[in-house]
């Protein structure tokens, strides 16, 4: 199971995460919608990272993020019929490790990759990717491949 990224995607996501510090940064991961998207362990290729503002209210942005559903709807409409889609999301965990929290799990969509970036003192120090199981009870870590597409 894997999340495949290129350097540009990585750079954009890392920069977003570092710039947002001490708040959480977030955005969409866009790429071709794979066959068997719902299969645990499928590979997802991301060719675009699209940073978005953290829509959570100011009081809790250091440990919460929200992507405005209106923006989400607009991007889905934009990609409609192209074979590409929103195949995952990235967000940062300021200071704490890149493991999904119970809240991450409660709010997670199936199929997609959830790429979490740990930012410590303004620097991205670790990142991990996760896919939610269909029953919504847990996340399974997936490998991150950086570089060209296979």
């Amino acid at each position, binding site marked *: 199971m894997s999340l495949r990224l290129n350097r540009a995607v990585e750079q954009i996501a890392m920069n977003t995460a570092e710039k947002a510090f001490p708040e959480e940064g977030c955005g969409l991961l866009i790429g071709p919608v794979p066959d068997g998207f719902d299969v645990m362990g499928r590979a997802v290729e991301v060719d675009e990272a699209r940073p978005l503002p953290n829509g959570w209210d100011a009081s809790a942005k250091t440990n919460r993020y929200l992507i405005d*559903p209106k923006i989400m709807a607009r991007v*889905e409409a934009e990609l409609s019929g192209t074979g590409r889609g929103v195949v995952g999301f990235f967000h940062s965990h300021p200071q704490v490790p890149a493991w999904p*929290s119970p809240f991450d799990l409660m709010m997670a969509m199936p199929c997609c990759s959830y790429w979490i970036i740990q930012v410590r003192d303004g620097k991205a120090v670790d990142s991990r990717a996760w896919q939610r199981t269909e029953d919504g009870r847990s996340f399974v870590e997936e490998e991150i491949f950086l570089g060209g597409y296979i």
Partner: protein
Amino acid sequence: MSIEIRLPTALRAFADKQERISVDAKDVGDALERLFIRHERLRQQLMAPDGKLRLFVNIYVNDDDARDRQGLSTPIKDGDTILIVPAIAGGSTVAEQGLTKAELVRYDRHLIMPEVGPEGQKKLKNASVLCVGAGGLGSPLALYLAAAGVGRIGIIDFDVVDESNLQRQIIHDTASIGTSKLASAKKRLLALNPYISVETHEARLTSANAVELFKKYDVIADGTDNFATRYLVNDACVLTGRPNAYGSIFRFEGQLAVFGLKDGPCYRCLYPEPPPPGLVPSCSEAGVLGVLPGVIGTMQAIEALKLILGIGRPLSGRLMLYDALEQSWRTLNVKKKPACPVCSENPTIKAPIDYEAFCGLKEKPMSTIPEISVQDLKAKLDKKEIFVLVDVREPHEYEIAKIAGSTLIPLGKLPERFAELDKSAKLIVHCKMGGRSAKAVQLLREKGYDATNVTGGITAWSEQIDPSVPQY
């Protein structure tokens, strides 16, 4: 009335990859129900067990949020579009934990230093350190980390407290002899600082569990006493990007360094290969000054705190050597090796390997060399058989206890002292427990000597033949 439901990318896999699905329905709830009849797996994704929409599901009728209208009862008419949009949200487990009043009091001497201060203390509280081993080094290390307020301390060990540990392993006490080291350490740490959490991992660190375990901690502190685990800790630290506050001790000397920082060297840059097995005796064989791990383990705690706080200059790219007899510290520069098999840009080791084999521990020459028991040895001595009894321990061990008539040649000196031994003689070799002498016997047999090992060494001799010989 035909209306169109549009699914987001994430949910299309549950509806035969369709993006738009037309249904006839009178309201939103009805439309969803008809959708679920066709694509049952969608129900679990969109609806909570109580029949309400899941938190992260937004429904728009044309451009209006259904919640602002009548929710699932919002009426729909021919030509309307229902848009299902996930509200993408999440976040870290807890906000960085602040300091409680009691903690402000406890950590006062940290808080008044600007280099630490409340911000630094919060970093400590939100940080985690894994101590590999709850022995000589792990004792002061874990105690000081706990006292300093490191919020989450992990310890991995599988041993029980032995009376001979207490000469240096000050996290345990006399009452804990025979109990698990982890239980004893955890009790002591929480008694010292109840505001932290202590996670115990009762296991041997192996190639199979190291990477997953290390991922859960910010800093790893290696307090192990053997090369196989030391190389494993090093490799797993590099593979997971975790810094290693390393310490080791031997008799009166200690080593200290930080390995595995991005621009710094790792243990393999310093020592690419382990020494041949048996040549470097362990603490149980060679001894260690009881205070020595107190010095080195405490220094490891300092390096761990510096790494967490981001202050000072980490001991990376430098190896410090401590000599207790000289009471001196020496610092050697260590460079990152461009061809390091683990931490270079093109590593050849991408996952933990078999360290027992790497360190030569899997060859078991003992099984292929001739051995005799201490009873056999006693019988041969009583019968006045002719042979040379060779003791391969260190001189100071020889002073504590010896078998009368033996010749002392420490294992490390054996290669240069072969000439002292008569090739035509029958050699019987012993050490403390039988390990070093097995190596010696193998070396000797390779050189053409007729050598035999004494199983159990002088310890077995003392236990089974002559209790007047002291055990140590």
